[in-house]
């Protein structure tokens, strides 16, 4: 019980406040380095993952790109077309799961 609550907290921590783009319909020819290259024009890509299915050796057409700032993510979403290897990607913002993310430690700031 306590464990699951804390786990939920952990999931929250890793998701909240990080500007992440969720990309679908990635052509099979592109992997994370191609995505990274494309999205670098919008800002600093902190992390880019395109998970591969090790059973088949293909990825599943989905990936996540984490930027340094919301502004960069915004720039990405502003652009209508994202095309890699001639294929149009579906790009959307990855939204945190919950709204109640008030986990910041207040510490000495106010008591």
């Amino acid at each position, binding site marked *: 019980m306590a464990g699951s609550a804390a*786990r939920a907290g952990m999931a929250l921590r*890793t998701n909240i406040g990080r500007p992440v783009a969720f990309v679908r319909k990635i052509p099979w020819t592109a992997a994370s380095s191609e995505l990274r290259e494309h999205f670098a*024009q919008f800002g600093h890509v902190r992390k880019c993952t395109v998970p591969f299915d090790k059973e*088949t*050796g293909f990825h599943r057409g989905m990936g996540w790109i984490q930027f340094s700032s919301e502004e960069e993510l915004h720039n990405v979403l502003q652009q209508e077309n994202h095309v890699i290897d001639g294929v149009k990607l579906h790009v959307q913002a990855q939204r945190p799961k919950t709204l109640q993310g008030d986990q910041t*430690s207040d510490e*000495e700031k106010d*008591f």
Partner: protein
Amino acid sequence: MSALLRPARWLLRAGAAPHLPLSLRLRAGGPGRPHAALCLRAAPVAGGVLSQARLYAIAAEKKNYLQEEPTSSHGRNASQFDWALMRLDNSVRRTGRIPKTLLQKVFDNTCHSGSPGGNQALLLLRSCGSLLPELKLSERTEFAHRIWDELQKLGTVYDVSHYNALLKVYLQNEYKFSPTDFLAKMEKANIQPNRVTYQRLIAAYCNMGDIEGASKILEFMKTKDLPVTEAVFSALVTGHARAGDMENAENILTVMKEAGIEPGPDTYLALLNAYAEKGDIDHVKQTLEKVEMSELYLMDRDLLQIIFSFSKAGYPQYVSEILEKITYERRYIPDTMNLILLLVTEKLEDTAFQILLACPISREDSLNDFGSFFLRHCVTMNTPAEKLKDYCKKLKEAHMHTSPFQFTLQCALLAKKIDLAKALMKALKEEGFPVRTHYFWPLLAGHQKEKNVQGIVEVLKGMHEIEVTPDQETYINYVFPCFDSVKSVRAVLKENGCLHEDNIFSQAELRSEAVNGNLDYILSFLESNTLPFSFASLRGSLILGFRRSMDINLWSKITELLYKDGRYCQEPLGPTEAVGYFLYNLIDSMSDSEVQAKEERLRQYFHQLKEMNVKIPENIYRGIRNLLDSYHVPELIKDVNMLVEREKTDSRKTTQPTSSDLESKLEKLKAENQPIGDVLKQLILLLCTEENMEKALELKAKYESDMVVGGYAALINLCCRHDNAEDALNLKREFDRLDSSAVLDTSKYVRLVRVLGKHGKLQDAINILKEMKEKDVLIKDATVLSFFHILNGAALRGETETVKQLHEAIVTLGLAKPSTTLSSPLVTLYLEKDDLPTALEVTIDCYEKYKILPRIHDVLCKLIEKGETDLIQKAMDFVSQEQGEMTMLYDLFFAFLQTGNYKEAKKIIETPGIRARPTRLQWFCDRCITSNQVETLEKLVELTQKLFECDRDQLYYSLLKLYKVNGDWQKADAVWNKMQEENIIPRGKTLRLLAEILRNSNQEVPFDVPELYEDEKHSLTSSPLPVEDSLQKELLDACHRKKNKDAFNIFLKAQKQNIVFGNETYASLIKLLLMKDNPTQAMHVKNFAETHIKGFTLNDAANSLLIITQVRRDYLKDALTTLKTALDLEQIPSRVAVTRLIQACALKGDTESIQDIQKLVNGLEDSIGLSRMVFINNIALAQIKNNNIDVAIENIENMLTSENQSMELQYFGLAYLYRKVIEEQLEPALEKISIMAERLANQFAIYKPVTDLFLQLVDSGKVNDARALLQRCGAIAEQIPIVLVFCIRNSRRSGKAPTMKSLLELIPELIEKEEAYTSIMKSYVLDSDVASAKALYENLAAKDVKLNDLFLKRYAVLLKKAGESVPFTEPPESFEFYAKQLKDSKEDPL
């Protein structure tokens, strides 16, 4: 399904249906040909590829009969039939064909269902003909025979319709068979042939050119008085033609007419095919003309059939002539595709390709590819690589397909055709496309599954041939798993000469060993390694390895090496940051329970690092501190704190004084007898963050009289962290003496309670709890959870009194409601001591006091394990009496299950009268899933099979969930079978889950996976809840989905019912309403919450949002009030909120409000991040709006020219003011400002204002005004730094290309600056202004400027996007790479 049923329904409605002959009914239903109902047009001749989309009508019709007499035993078959029918129907409707795999699946499924019905058999048999263009003719017939035999074995009873269906398939597949044998077979089965049978047998004879045989049957038909239809005549045309007698074939048409039957399209088609088979194009053309004259009409699909006849007979040269006649009606596209597939199957791929190219596909939309189906089928049919490459090339040239090579390669990879794949990759390379490492992964994955070492080696060799280097992922994921050890991989690869990049291999090896927890290896590798590599690449694997191996000495040694050895920390980060980040990630990757369990070892690790003098930066330390806090192990914080690097202050924080600075400052102030309160507090806070408790306490003792509450609060917290109960308590007392009304924040209270409780200071702990109540401290869910942790910790330590008294206090004070969780430590105390009688007593006691039964399940389990029969009886009597017999039975059932007493459990659940309780069953299922008890859950599902009203699907769903966790697809597959045995109809979600498990294990999914519907998603999670909770949940859910109207309505509903929700809920709702620009409703909610929840306030973020919304709605007075409220609460509003408010006031000309705000936020500017210019600009703007232009200008001028300037000139930006003045078209003001700016420039040599004005004019498109200004004040052109900043800023926004262009025209010298031309190019690229970009590039090239790679990369990408050629080699690396390169080169000017 409707497409199939439509014909039948249409007929039934027509009323005439039952009286029509079967074949007529079929035809009549078919749409498409207006005269279809009139002309009897039965099955076309053999090879009738494309005309049986209506095939299923009989099956559908039969189904209708079946529904008319529903019996219970038929019900299930019918529903399965529905399902199969739907699948096949969908496929036929969409594509006119059925993929082989689909038919196989439906067949397997039908067999599995036990006794397939006749209509199912019919459906399957009918599908084995021309609906399978991807299969060779012989394979199709084999398939039909397999189905026939298999179903017969399963007891399907065949009737004449089945025999006829089989005949039809024979005809379509041009299967050679003996019609007499066929008749004999029917006779043996005692089936009477009917007219259709004879007709088809005639066609069979005719196909073989056996007119004699056909005539015999025809005679027989006549004696039986069976009508001779057009189909028979058509067959005879074919028969004579195939017998080589074209004259008689033509004659049949005359015979027909004499018999009173007018030849229809079918007959002509037979004739046309006959000529085509002979390669007689002239006669084909003549006949086509004749058809046209007789006002008959041939459909595309008929023409396609003629094409097929030509090509199959070896006359591909005539194909184009027929192709010209095709109209390409949209609905025949699937037919065309099927012909193409069939031709490929027949190895006539060149003709197929010719037809493909002729297809009128829209080629404008380059994102739509056509021809994939062809390429895929070519790959399946082993078309030679050379041909495929040629097709790809041509498809690309014809703009039909954007990436044919890549697509074909994908097909080859999926089909594991290695040689083809290699050939295609080479072709890709030749065509100038990249060949990427991951293209080889599917091939490797295939070999890996079979542990085929030789195969792996072959692929690696192939990679080398194509000059693709395997990367680390390739080795780790696809090569290593094939071998027993990495060592043997190295040996094998070396032997085969595939070890070309030793460095990459070694790093892969390192990562692989790290993941396996082989830390010895890591250490020795790192010690002996001579190759450079980055620590970052190893980080993730190393963390996994650390968690696998608990050898702390190795942890420390490795960390030390990475920290101290220059080989590993050459990154820009440097060792402190790299190692700090590593520690953060290490702890972040662990769960709370893992950290709790490893607390001592982690401590040891940190201490060893300290010994080794390893340091980490302070900001990372803070992150780790927060992590440890959230894991409930604050005791570790001080151990990490030892590692913080203190000497070197962070360059970003040069302003922050060190503790020694502050201390001397403090002493100085003291000596001067000045107030020291603030400095003292600052120093104490600093010492607290440095975890220097001793020093902080010392300081407090020294300056006790100057201490403020803030200092105390921090100190108390510090002592709690250091487990120092004594001092914490003393400090708390002093704190109270200082200000008895002061309130600490919740977490600090909780920590105090925890520490005091831990040190046996129970009464003090209870006093703290009392204070929390008195001072109405906010209790969040997390607080209740912390209470549980405090109690549970004490219970595990066996501190009976602590648990009891603290629990009692928490509950009686009403800080938390008693719940099974919160009260469970009371029972845990005794369970831990194995004192079962008391444990049971306490549980019962809890029920009497609070109506809850904490840990009853665990108590029962233990009682059963120990065989305490009497106590079990006692427990059961109690539960039975208080909660009813059913609850008692369930408790007992679960306890028996849990303890493995399945026999007893079975007896319990078979008690007569017991029925399913979904929530309780679900509870147990979830429990099993969380603790991964497979057997227990399996037993639960098994034992509840006969339980009344049991939701079997839900239980199986839970079981599948557990199998999914364990990746056990075999068991999941068995569930699928069991569900069918039990006759359960699985819900969509169950099927989806099952499919997911199978797919994850790379198994075929034997069923159609249903899609998820929105409302279903919703209902998945809903379970009965009390109204209050369910409303709250609904509300939060609505908030989550951003449905503000729904959310507000739920709020109103709850308000009516007088239901009050928690703090967080209201906060969420208010935030949502504000985000949706609805301040009135937001205020309504806020007022309600404030009146119903004591101490309800909005936090910083919500208040800021409120201000923004109020500003947007033009409620400036309200916004100002909100700002005041927030500041009163000592909140820090956001910069955006304050700025917006100020700007809004300015536009209203409300100077006073701006000045009020200035006073309000005085001293907080830095915290908010407000620049002074915000006030200067906006006050001036407000004054201008009030027509006090002169005052505004005078103020600014004074500020700029006065002796003691408070601000450096370069930061004195008036751009905002200018922009607003220009935008608002305040011409007189603009003129006066311009005069002022020029005066400042000319008389005072202050150029910043005039330059800003110039730039704003350019930006607003007032280029002429800008030019005039520049002419009057030439010095503007020399203010290069200001202009460059402008360029760089603007290049980040789109739509600035015109501004940049004008700027460059006005100040041409700008082009010499790298920052300028780089930014300008960036702008052009952002706006896709190719022409300007070209001009810029050419201009620069003419000047022989050495352009940086980033610039070139941008320009190249722009050109490529515009479809133009790039006049230089495009820099190969990524944008990021060059951006970094450029940055580095600037930081390090050699």
